[in-house]
């Protein structure tokens, strides 16, 4: 009874979040809607007993991906009203996409095409079920070891690509080199002079490093 109610709550939250993303005039509202959708999706996962996936969604999507979106939205200066102009041109593509997804969803809800009627294996439910992470680890590092590694490699390639595309060596800025600063000796950093009273230090005392004490 209570799980049913929670399911209603979470799915309503996802729908509301999705609606905000789609119709929100302000892109910041859209990001907030996306957050709402992610959090509620994670709630649904936890409700299904997949608490590891649920928390991972919060950590990865909410904690990292959406922060990046927010960052970009905050720092770029785009006239979103101008972007909205001519939206009718994209209408056919949009209708096609939404229609396709809706068809898929309706078919999935009908159930006969996706074998949704098959119950979960009984040993995966109840108190004797292994912990989520244990079960995941057992298949991830044995049965799916190669796909797992390949997925990791894909991410690495994406990262290297992103850095390779955007990185440019800059010579116009001053960078701090901690090692150099720490290794600096007293003789390189200061010059002791012994000027006569009323005369002041000789004017070019900072030029030569090897100036001896009292040298003029």
């Amino acid at each position, binding site marked *: *009874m*209570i799980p*049913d*109610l929670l399911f209603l709550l979470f799915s309503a939250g996802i729908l509301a979040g999705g609606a905000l993303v789609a119709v929100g005039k*302000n892109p*910041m509202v859209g990001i*907030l809607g996306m*957050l709402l959708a992610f959090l509620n999706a994670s709630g649904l996962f936890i409700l299904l007993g997949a*608490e*590891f996936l649920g*928390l*991972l969604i*919060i*950590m990865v999507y*909410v*904690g*990292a991906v959406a*922060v990046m979106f*927010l*960052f970009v939205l*905050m*720092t770029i200066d785009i006239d979103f009203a101008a972007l909205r102009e001519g939206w009718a041109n994209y209408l056919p593509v949009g209708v096609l996409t939404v229609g396709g997804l809706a068809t898929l969803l309706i078919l999935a809800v009908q159930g006969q095409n996706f074998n949704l009627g098959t119950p979960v294996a009984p040993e995966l439910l109840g108190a004797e079920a292994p*912990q*989520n*992470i244990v079960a995941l680890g057992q298949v991830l590092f044995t049965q799916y070891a190669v796909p797992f590694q390949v997925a990791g490699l894909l991410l690495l390639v994406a990262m290297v690509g992103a850095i390779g595309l955007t990185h440019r060596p800059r010579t116009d800025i001053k960078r*701090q080199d*901690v090692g150099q600063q720490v290794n600096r000796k007293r003789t390189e950093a200061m010059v002791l002079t012994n000027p006569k009273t009323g005369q002041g230090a000789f004017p070019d005392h900072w030029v030569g490093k090897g100036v001896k004490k009292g040298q003029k």
Partner: protein
Amino acid sequence: MIEILTLYAQALATPENGWWLFLTLAGILAIAIPVLIGMAMLTWFERKILGWMHLRHGPMYVGPFGLLQPFADAIKLMTKELFLPAKANTLMFVLAPMMVFVPALLAWAVIPLGPAPYFGTNMVVADINLGVLYILAVSSLGVYGILLAGWASNSKYPFLGAVRSGAQMVSYEVSLGLIVLSVILLAGSMNLTAIVNAQQGLWFFIPAFPAFVMFLISILAECNRHPFDLPEAEAELVAGYNTEYSSMGFGMFFLGEYIAMITMSAFTVLLFLGGWLPPLNIAPFTYIPGVFWFAGKVLLILFFMVWVRGTLPRYRYDQLMRLGWKVFLPLSLAWLVLTAVVVKVWGNLA
């Protein structure tokens, strides 16, 4: 729709469900209220320690030893005028402080305080298997409030503060996560109670000392505390993301930051300092209930945070980023690999 909801409401309104609801709410209040009071006392603690470090007295007029000063501050904040900037996005401007405050408090759902005196039951609202992951997930939510506050204020200093804060919290979360993973390897569990119980013989800060030091520094950055308090650097950004906030809006940011400090200190204590376990499992130490040991250790970490604030100057932004990405990330990754190898060869400490 309405019929369905009424049906649900009728089915839910049973004595058992009512009792369950009451117990849950009572459990939540039993942890949230002490945390909030602890937060209030932490501001007193910080001002007192800083005062002594500056050869001053700190707060001393309101109540004995100035103990009631935090409550006086709270009353002052609540009775001040709530000021909304004209060009601000009102909805997000109001929402942002709550988005800082709520996640900070949420983490306490999984923090175990040790066996209750006289009963022996574990004092925790939800003893879930993925407690560590839950804390990391929830603590990553706090950054949104700060980012939104900076953006919604529509003012340049809050905006700069928010951008800094976002980058900083995301950067240090990475090394924080890697260090936590190495501790999970040592304990062989993600359950916080199990992690503490694995430290029965040896507190993890001894075998994992480098990780402990890195963790302590990372939580300073994660909580936006000195010497990494760049988001609110008052000398350069006025007050960073909360420049435009007044009254309880500011109060909520304040609450969120200090509760996050306590949360992170408690997390450190659970991961490295043996939680509620006494230093030696012999007679005079075991007389003191575990929760007092826990509170004492949390106070120790909090003292460290205040001590650092009173001692060190603020880092520059590029120094902060270099420390996070070029020093802590490789070091914590190397430590994780090392721990994994050692655990594989000799087994974990559980």
